[in-house]
């Protein structure tokens, strides 16, 4: 009975594997439909024809399957739902960017030539990066070199992380470039590709916050009494206020509203989770509102964005063009959508990055957009679940870390989809896993890799 083969078989991650196969079939069917609709001449109704069409686009999904099988051997008890959800969202990304590439080329010339291929490469690199985090025995390596596990190492060097974050911001001021004319210089030019440092900044900030709040949780939450008032312990709030300052400074000097809003949202969420005090959140929101009002008065781009949000139709041919076209695109999709490849999403500028949700809305309709939102919800709640399932009393850092990472995905999704739907002012930021963009895809996969790694520890 103690056959090692049967042992392996019992560890086989059947739920994850089946879900991944479903995602793979969904993606293959979607891709074939897309080819049938947009490149009818290439579509062959024979098995070899279909295989030759599919094989260039399947590697990412096959890699997911390989990761799943690998997990059966190395970490059989890691979470089984995260990977299929991420595979679904990445598959949707590949599908839509493949679909959008010819439309973008027809509209803007050749500057978007090859975006689908690049995205495919980035997704593969993302999966590889994620695998590296999951499969490399980091704990052994770190214990050998640093005498502590990976998580402890992250926890231990919190001020180094804070410094790294500050440095990253400074470097952005100095070396930031603006390759695609969006008006904000928030990319690094690495020759081969552009990297958006704010993507990395989110993880760094979450590490710092998790570590700091875990260390001082009791003090920060407790406060001290001054007569009838309970005041927060001021000295401990200084680093936290510094975070608020960073968020505001990012808006003022970099005009990167999306990143600032994201950082601040994650900051507030983590502060609340660590302390359980709504008062801090309220104070944070009021401080943000006050700051935002002042910025509205002095920073033109904030005023512009808010004006467009309040009445995009007034400037429908100028600054409101993008959002007005997005509104038309969503309405044109209706409940069932125009069908993959049959809409005209490319009239919305930045359709493959900031506004990719609109393209899904136009071609897959309300059922498509709601399905995507549900996928994000499941992903986010799975992340919270992982955080709460961490056993043991002294794992506060990992809990806060997992919550922070999940909150990044949650806040980022709400900000960009809300901006697309004109629920909040638009801020340029990517839709996790779906938007085109190397740094974004890579960092999101690293987030999932970290969550997966944390989830393996629930022994």
């Amino acid at each position, binding site marked *: 009975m103690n056959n090692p083969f049967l042992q392996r078989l019992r560890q086989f991650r059947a739920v994850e594997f089946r879900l991944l196969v479903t995602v793979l079939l969904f993606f293959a069917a979607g891709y074939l439909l897309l080819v049938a609709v947009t490149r009818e001449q290439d579509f062959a109704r024979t098995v070899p024809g279909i295989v030759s069409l599919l094989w260039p686009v399947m590697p990412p999904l096959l890699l997911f399957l390989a990761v799943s099988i690998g997990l059966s051997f190395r970490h059989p008890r890691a979470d089984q739902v995260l990977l299929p959800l991420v595979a679904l969202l990445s598959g949707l990304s590949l599908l839509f960017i493949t679909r959008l590439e010819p439309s973008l080329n027809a509209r803007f010339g050749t500057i978007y030539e090859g975006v689908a291929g690049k995205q495919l490469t980035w997704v593969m690199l993302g999966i590889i990066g994620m695998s590296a985090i999951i499969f490399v025995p980091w704990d052994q390596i770190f214990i050998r070199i640093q005498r502590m596990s990976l998580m402890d190492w992250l926890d231990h060097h919190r001020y180094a992380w804070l410094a790294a974050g500050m440095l990253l911001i400074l470097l952005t001021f100095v070396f930031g470039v603006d390759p695609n004319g969006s008006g904000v210089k928030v990319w690094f030019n690495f020759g081969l590709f552009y990297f958006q440092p704010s993507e990395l900044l989110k993880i760094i900030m979450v590490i710092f916050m998790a570590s700091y709040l875990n260390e001082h949780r009791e003090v920060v939450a407790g406060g001290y009494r001054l007569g009838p008032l309970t005041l927060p312990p001021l000295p401990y709030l200084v680093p936290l206020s510094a975070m608020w300052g960073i968020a505001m400074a990012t808006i003022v000097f970099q005009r990167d509203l999306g990143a600032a809003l994201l950082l601040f949202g994650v900051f507030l969420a983590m502060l*609340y989770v660590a302390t359980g005090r709504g008062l801090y959140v309220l104070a944070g929101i009021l401080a943000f509102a006050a700051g935002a009002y002042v910025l509205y008065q002095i920073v033109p781009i904030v005023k512009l964005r808010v004006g467009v949000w309040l009445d995009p139709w007034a400037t429908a*041919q100028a600054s409101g063009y993008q959002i007005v076209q997005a509104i038309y695109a969503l309405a044109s999709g209706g*409940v069932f959508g125009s*069908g993959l490849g049959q809409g005209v999403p490319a009239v919305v500028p930045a359709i493959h990055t900031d506004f990719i949700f609109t393209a899904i809305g136009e071609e897959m309709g309300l059922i498509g957009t709601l399905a995507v939102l549900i996928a994000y919800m499941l992903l986010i*709640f799975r992340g919270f679940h992982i955080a709460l399932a961490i056993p043991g009393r002294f794992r506060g850092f990992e809990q806060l870390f997992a919550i922070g990472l999940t*909150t990044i995905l949650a806040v980022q999704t*709400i900000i960009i989809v809300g901006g697309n739907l004109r629920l909040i002012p638009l801020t340029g930021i990517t839709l996790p896993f779906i938007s085109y963009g190397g740094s974004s895809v890579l960092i999101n996969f690293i987030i999932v890799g970290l969550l997966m790694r944390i989830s393996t520890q629930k022994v």
Partner: protein
Amino acid sequence: MRTFLRNLTILAVIGLLAYGMWQPPTEDTRWLVSLWATAPLMGLAVWLSQPRLPRGLARSVYHLGVVVCIGFVLLSLQLLRQQMVQASAIYNRVEVDPDSGQITSNVRPVLASQRTVRGDMFDRKGLHMVGSETVTVGNNTFARRTYPGAAQFDLTAFGNVLGFYSTRFGQSGLEASQSQFLSGAAGNPIARMEDQIFGRTPVGNSLRLTLNAQLQARAYGLLGGRTGSVVVLNPRTGEVLALTSSPGFDPAQLTFNPSAEDWTAENARISAYWDQLNSDAAGQPLLNRPTQGQYPPGSTFKTVTAVGVLEYPREGDPDNIRCMNELPVEAGAPPVVNAVNDLASLTGDPSNLERVYAYSCNVAFAQYALRLGPDRFTEIARRFDIYSPPDVPRTYGGFDDLLTASSRLFVQPGFLNRPLALADTGYGQGQLLMTPLQMGMVAAAIANDGVMMKPYLVQQIVRPDGGVVRTQQPEEVRRVMSPATAAKMRADMRAVGEYGFGKVISSLVPGVVVGGKSGTAEHAPGLPPHAWFIAIGPVENPRYAVAVMVESGGEGSSVGGTLAGQVLQAAFETE
């Protein structure tokens, strides 16, 4: 208490959402405000419906989850509004900037229409008048209108019936009224669904028209550049055989050709033609005069008055009539006079209905109208779908294939209560406003033994696969007069052609007994009168009912009669 509060909160949320969700897209701000207002209420509702949790990480994460959840619910609600509840209103929203005049609208309806292969149009003999072809330019496929009929005919004669189809200037004529069928949006839902699933270029349904293209072209030629209308109906069925408006326009010249080398020049060419059509000198070629032109009908209207006195013989006493030189109606007002002096020498004194009709005696018909009185007169006119205020429909519902104006017995309410107004209306002046089509229908009702048929242009709508979507069956509007009245009226009309003020039509259609009635309508001081003529032929068993009208053309009996006779001749020759 908590449950009550929670239910109250939930009700408030539902109320706010229902209020906001149905706000029109122009009132988006109200919706956003009510949507945002629901967010704290939703949080409150969740808080009220959960037991208090002990302070700790689990509670905090739970609260964070609720906040994230509310965020996603707000997104979903916004999607529900944008993609379902208000989707079509947003889809069709057109915003005009008041300062620059720039128009913002959705490009998709235009793009969709550029791809649709619209259905063909054939005349009653199967002549291919309008077609479609697909043109591939680069990666894009466009469909465009072609006009095979142009090889045989001057398309200008057909412009107002077929209509133009332009992505810039819209559509008119049958292109507009049958657009749903021509585009395929209506008529073959299954094929449309397949097209959508497989992304095929949609193909529309074809129209088989009742129009006789040869007759239409001949009629336009007979108008010879004069401004006017020709209507030819089959009185038995209501089929519209010809519906000519002059001046016309060439729909082919408003069609964009995507295969043109230079799209800017192509657009400029179309714009230039459009501007030319709309210039003052062009004489409104885009107006379809037979159905949209409203004119005083002159003496052709005596036909209606005559039907009145025949239907009410006791009050009307048709064969007890005198044709004096003048008839004083109201003290102080000028008397009713005849167009020709000493007409009694022709009609005889005393006379009868046939002779006063044949010689178009105004004084006699003024007396008839006064005998009938305003109520009976209004009732007789209403039988012919000639409306009296205030119950005038904006468009005439009896003919729905083209945009058609309603004909009116008078304009100011209460007008007919003045005896002089009633007398003037009796012989076709007053405030009468008739479309040529309506006068054609008057003639057709008499030709069809008193039953007025609903006119129609579209005989059949055919799917691309040959299946029939719809075949138009002849439809009665109503019986307008008794068969006896109709027979008497045919005899009267025959008298006009035989010896009265319309003899000219008989000479133009040798071997066939035809009849009719002329009309010379005063419309503006200093301008020649409108020349009218309505005709039926052959009188014994009419196959055609004709109404012709030349704006400021002169005498109805000569100009109108000649044209009507030539049209009848053409109708017999092209049948």
